């Protein structure tokens, strides 16, 4: 695969991510995130991790972000006045922490690139390979994710249930 596509999608990813943070309209934020995730899944495909790329596109761009869009549209957040960075009390602290994090990240990454190069062909991202690994080596974590889903169901049911009977609850708590 020519590096041209890598640089193309990486550039798209960076610009879209910046737009997620910087755009003032919540609708644009969400739509930029869709573009960012599309570019990211393209990067995965270039790395021959087809399954991850596909799932990223289906789950995030397809399902999660559509939810976000619904929420943004339902709440009509356009009129919301957001706090700008200049208004925050912690902006210098935030800038300092961000700078420290980024610089140490670059330092770490520089040493990483020097130390080794990953062989792309050793990563097998096909559905067959992932399925085999999930049901053999990673059987326990895979099965345990069902417990996470169970918590999600209990949580949603019990928290949403309370909303119907708030009148009763307020007397007691």
């Amino acid at each position, binding site marked *: 695969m020519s590096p041209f596509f890598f640089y193309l999608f990486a550039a798209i990813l960076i610009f879209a991510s910046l737009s997620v943070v910087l755009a003032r309209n919540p609708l644009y934020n969400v739509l930029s995130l869709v573009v960012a995730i599309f570019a990211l899944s393209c990067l995965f495909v270039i790395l021959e991790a087809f399954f991850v790329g596909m799932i990223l596109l289906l789950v995030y761009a397809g399902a999660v972000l559509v939810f976000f869009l619904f929420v943004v549209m339902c709440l009509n957040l356009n009129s919301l006045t957001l706090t700008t960075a200049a208004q925050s009390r912690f902006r210098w602290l935030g800038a300092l922490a961000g700078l420290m994090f980024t610089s140490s990240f670059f*330092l*770490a990454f520089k040493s*990483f690139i020097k130390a080794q190069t990953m062989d792309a062909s050793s990563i097998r991202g096909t559905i067959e390979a992932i399925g085999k690994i999930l049901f053999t080596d990673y059987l326990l974590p895979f099965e*345990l994710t069902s*417990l996470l889903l169970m918590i*999600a169901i*209990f949580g949603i049911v019990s928290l949403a249930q309370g909303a119907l009977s*708030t009148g009763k609850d307020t007397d007691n708590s």
Partner: protein
Amino acid sequence: MFPVIDWSLVSLEVLISIILVSLVVVDIVLPKNADKDWIGIFSFIALAGLIIFWLTQGSLSGTTFSGMFVMDSLAWFFKTFFLIAMVFVFAMTQEFFKSLGERRNEFYLLLWLALIGMCLVASSADFLLLFISIEILTISLYVMTAYLKSDALSIEAGMKYLILGALASGFFLYGISFLYGTTHSTHFSVIQSYCQIHAMSPMTLFALVLIFAAVGFKIAAVPFHMWVADVYQGAPTPVTALLSVGSKAAGFIILIRLFFSIFGAWHAEWGLALAILSAITMTYGNLVAMFQTNIKRLLGYSSISHAGYLLMGAAAGTALGASGINFYLLGYLFTNLAAFLVIIVFSIATKSDEIADYAGLSQRSSLLACTMLLALVSLAGMPPLVGFFGKFTLLMAVIKSGYIWLALIAGVNIVISLYYYLMVAKRIYVDPPRHTAKIIVPSKIRLLLVIAILGIVIIGIFQGPFLDAAMAAVQGMYLSHL
């Protein structure tokens, strides 16, 4: 090739899962009746059975699920710890939901799920499994923290915990990905052998810092403590008790596995950093705790300072330090849960968590007052109670490792903490009561209070066997680097 699974090693987790599923069925089948707390009774019997079963399984050891799940003495010790803690939390929950009959059953189910999460954390030998176990524990805690939907404080606590917890999870995953990039594995044994051969690189340092940030969030160490006070105050009291004991112990077992096995070879690099963090954490917790007026907030800050004391054991980096952590946590279990039992009975009777309302508690219920006094004095570290000997072990560990300044700071902190613990004790025993109505303690809670008092006193006086157990837990640790 399908892996060979040794089911006897995962017996506790399998049994808990079976109980969980049967409780769901019971919940659906039995008629909804606000007076009969079926699930609570069922849970109690199941938990008692589990503890008896688990105490006979002390000799289990080995790995299964392609080396991901490890059963060693450390895991056995902490699983026993979690089961005992859960008995108290279930009793608190039963009391707590007597006034809020609704939505009680789901709460029990979430508690069981949190228990599975804690047990799995104790047995993880792979970062992937560890991450999923932590998430099982933490996500069920998010839901339980925000459980009182009509209480603004509870929702605020749940929201704060969720956002900061998600950030911590992000850090954790980021750290794991760096480790994976360097060592090409998520398994503890591979990473450990990598660390023994290679020196620390900026890459692995970055990974270590990120992973520590996530664990620091769980154990409430400064500077990852931001959530503690608000969450402790706003969460339903049984959840606060679980957070302060179960969740903290889960954090410390990860810490023991990280620093005493995986990264054990790099003690020279992280020892001093942990010692400094420990000093900052205990000083911050104690100084801020002095100005609290809410008992749950006070215990929140006190929990931060105890995380600082416990970090001393990790900073020491010796077997004595690790066994000191285990012993201290064992004492902290009985001490803190005794305090929370008193708080829950008191808040149900008076609808208040303010320290000012505790005035004259000794005249309203001598058992509650006596338990609270013992718990506070043990938290402060007075002999002959268990808190004293725990602190003594940890101090000895850091002095032997050469951190005399840290021991001195800890000594000053113990004096500071005496001030605010004894202020509460003074309110309870010296100040005149605002109300004179007696507080009735239910018989089950009375029994647990007595057990907690016995735990505080007996472990404090006859430390020998318990210290041996704490030491044995460390010595039989999987991939130990001591």
